[in-house]
């Protein structure tokens, strides 16, 4: 089930939203739905702080916070992606006894083989 909600955005935010939607090949509706979903996932204190920082023009704190959030999200995505691959257990258990150098050399051989295959 879904509900249709309408809202008013000021010109600046609406313009920015359209630009992001276009760049990311999304509809405005999808963009706004995602934004609301993420916002409502945050605890109230975090939402309030973000809005407060946002209200300060050229907020260095907001930029720093955004940067930190991006870094946290990138780390989480990397860990999740690595975890999903590891769960597939595609590497043979023989490498379990390999030392550091041997692990790297095995990996280098795999890469070189793929490069040669690609020509």
């Amino acid at each position, binding site marked *: 089930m879904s509900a249709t909600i309408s809202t008013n955005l000021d010109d600046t935010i609406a313009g920015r939203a359209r630009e992001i939607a276009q760049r990311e090949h999304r509809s405005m509706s999808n963009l706004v739905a995602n934004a609301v979903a993420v916002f409502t996932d945050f605890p109230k204190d975090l939402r309030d702080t973000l809005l407060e920082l946002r209200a300060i023009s050229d907020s260095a704190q907001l930029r720093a916070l955004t940067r930190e959030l991006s870094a946290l999200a990138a780390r989480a995505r*990397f860990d999740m992606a*690595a975890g999903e691959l590891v769960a*597939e257990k595609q590497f043979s258990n023989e*490498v379990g006894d390999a030392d550091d150098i041997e692990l790297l050399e095995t990996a280098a051989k*795999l890469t070189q083989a793929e490069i040669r295959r*690609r020509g």
Partner: protein
Amino acid sequence: MSRRRRRRLFASVSMSTCGSPILMAIQNGRTGTSAQAVIAVTREMKVGDQPVQLIVSLEMADTLERVLTRVGFSAARSHNFASSVIDLMKAGPEQLDPHLLISGRDQLGMHDREDAGVLATAIAAKADLIVTDNLRDFQTNDSETIETRTVRAGKVQRRLFSVIIERADGVCVVVAHPIDVVDWLRSGKEISAAMVRGQYRKSATRRDRGARPIGGPCRWPDVRLKARATGPAISRGRLVVSRSRGSR
């Protein structure tokens, strides 16, 4: 007393270092391998108080994805992992976008086209360091090779070395083995050509005796990188770089 703020370290990590070896290690319950340590630093985006910016090209990420798919991993998960490496670069201290290499690698005098792409990307992104197990391919007539240490690989001893590529136009990249890099980082060293020369100077050799003196006049190849989508162009000598935007 105020502490000196350390400069940012721009590090390009080869895909054969940040892909398979860490997955092999995790799958087998290993911890503390050099590949894992290098990735831990790029994941944290800093080492000690020194910010670390990962540098990866779209081509490098594509190679990583292909290798993982070839090993047998699902295509979607391989793509997701390669994209997550790009995300680490984009979220780094410099928030860099990945580059798409168009031309220039052929002029770098390297035998391996893929590694030439890695070097060209590192040059364009002003990297200080390339971390790779495959050092030999980075030895060119203009490079400086410095032996660093001997390590045991199975039953044999292997001599590790670093390659310094330094040019008159200011380009200076240290190409180093993950084991050396981890050791330097753990001991708090600021990685640079000067540090490597200073620590291992006695064993410094030029691969080609006829090579030009480092820092002397040279013809720098015209490396061109073009964005997948348009972005601000950065001019660096004869390098032309555009950063891609929203290329994922």
